[in-house]
């Protein structure tokens, strides 16, 4: 596998980040792990934004990934991290393959609303499932890896190294995807779906693949979240959680594969301090930041929508 310059930089940063984990304080390692897990979900949101679709329900796959990991440990006594994550991703892929048949028929506001509806359905089911702890959720069992059980103090750092490695691999793959025919076709669909159809390509097929792939990536984030937090609850599928992912996606923009990772880390760090300093103003800061991005940085972040506006005028 030949690596491009961007990909080498991504891998280099990942090695530095992983090494930094050995000297960083434990709270920071934990914070970065959570941020990277969320960043994976955001990657799923960004993948769809590149195709012109805004999802207000990516929490669905975040939650499915998390619950699949938690339930496999709880009910099937599986503790191997790799197997757990695979189950999480597999569950999300199956669900996305089913929902995708329907979702790919919708665009714009209908896509946003339908994605929101599906994630709220899962939320509604989980809240009423007493076997799964209802609103409280349940604790996730400690993980092992290929027969190795980390000592109690080691687990967070080991998980951090693993998630950094996975993030790096994911970043390289997504970077390639964004430049592949399929990735470029997503942008083409955002720009002009009718033309794509008249080039002999099926927009629905491209969007379907993209939807399933985005679900897989987001579920991986959900699985990591379950393992690092050690707890899962229905909040993961709540629409406010999905809104947060959209926020981070907009913060970073869709221009570069590294953007969601950087934005998610920035988001986590700022939130940690903001909640301590001004406990009841965190959401207000988020809201004003979001408005500022939309008003002052429309071109960088909103190539997505300016493209549509221009087409509407043509």
């Amino acid at each position, binding site marked *: 596998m030949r690596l491009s310059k961007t990909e080498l930089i991504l891998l280099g940063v990942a090695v530095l980040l992983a090494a930094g984990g050995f000297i960083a304080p434990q709270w920071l390692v934990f914070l970065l792990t959570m941020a990277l897990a969320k960043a994976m979900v955001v990657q799923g949101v960004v993948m769809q934004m590149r195709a012109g679709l*805004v999802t*207000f329900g990516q929490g669905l796959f975040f939650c499915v990934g998390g619950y699949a990991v938690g339930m496999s440990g709880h009910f099937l006594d599986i503790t191997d991290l790799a197997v757990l994550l695979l189950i999480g991703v597999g569950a999300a892929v199956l669900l996305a393959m089913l929902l995708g048949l*329907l979702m790919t*028929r*919708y665009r*714009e*506001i*209908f896509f*946003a*609303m*339908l994605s*929101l*509806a*599906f994630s*709220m*359905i899962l*939320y*509604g*089911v989980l*809240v*009423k*499932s007493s076997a799964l702890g209802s609103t409280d959720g349940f604790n996730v069992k400690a993980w092992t890896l290929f027969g190795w059980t980390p000592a109690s103090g080691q687990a967070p750092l080991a998980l951090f190294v693993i998630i950094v490695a996975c993030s790096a691999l994911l970043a390289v793959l997504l970077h390639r995807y964004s430049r592949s025919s399929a990735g470029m076709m997503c942008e083409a669909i955002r720009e002009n779906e*009718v033309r794509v159809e008249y080039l002999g390509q099926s927009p629905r097929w491209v969007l379907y693949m993209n939807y399933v792939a985005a679900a897989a990536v987001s579920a991986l984030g959900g699985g990591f979240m379950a393992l690092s937090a050690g707890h899962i609850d229905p909040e993961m599928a709540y*629409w*406010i959680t999905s*809104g947060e992912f*959209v926020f981070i996606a*907009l913060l970073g923009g869709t221009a570069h594969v590294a953007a969601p990772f950087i934005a998610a880390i920035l988001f986590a760090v700022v939130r940690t301090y903001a909640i301590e300093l001004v406990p*009841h*103003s*965190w*959401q*207000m800061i*988020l*809201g*004003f930041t*979001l*408005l500022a991005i*939309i*008003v002052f940085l429309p071109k960088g972040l*909103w190539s997505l*929508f300016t493209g*549509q*506006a221009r087409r509407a005028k043509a």
Partner: protein
Amino acid sequence: MMSLFAVLIDGTIYASWLFLVAAGLTVIYGVMRILNMAHGSFYAIGAYTAASLVGWYFNNGIGPVWAGYLLMLGCALVAGLIVGLIIERGLLRFMYGRDEVLMVIITYALLLVLEDTMKMIWGVNPYFAYQPYAEMGRSALAGLKVSNYDLMLVGVSAVLGLGLWLWLERTHQGKVLRAVIHDREVAMAMGVNVRRMFTLVFVLGTMLGTLAGALTAPAISVVPGMGVEIIVLAFAVVVIGGMGSIEGAAVGALLVGLSRAAAVHYAPEFELFVIYGVMALVLAVRPQGLFGRVLARKI
């Protein structure tokens, strides 16, 4: 038979409440094409305003009971007027003409700001204003004890819905509004002051939201986050009926209200599932909603 009757009564009451909450949302979307995520916050603002003022009024025995009801409605309308004007004049008017999905995100930002603003004004402890609810007492309907306040909600909701419908269908202003809904650019070319219409409609929608909150306040405890909880519910109602349609919102509210009541009585674990399930089902079968119009596409 008894429980079926109970489902009907509960469902109708819940549907009236849903309609009150969703009416402002659908009016704003219909005219302005803004799916307003902050509508839940308007509802919460109305509830907080009413609960704090009405609670103070009754606890200190300021005046007669009937004036308490007037205070409840009046303060909510004033709050809606102020909030609606500030938001439309201060923020939204600079955003018109943008993509619909972007407008959702803008109003989402607004929701975040309003949630914390409410915490600054009212704190995080719950407010109660149960007096208007308790004062009305209960009546027996075919052996079923029903709160008179809830029955009044059904009436208010019906009057409001009919009023809105008549306004849109029968008055000159309503006709102008429908012209704006049908084709904004043509309406503008024919001399309709669309900007003023937008201000009017947004403020009206906001007032409907705060009114719904104020009417709900006596029946619940008013807590932070209440607006966030109801907004998706309101979306469900509006999406089912067809975004922007008054009669659609009424039918959507009835559909959601009755199915939720049925779920609560027969299969409580499916309560929330049913609401969003109906929404997803309608979107899947008829994405423009039951009363929505299909927009033609051109190349």
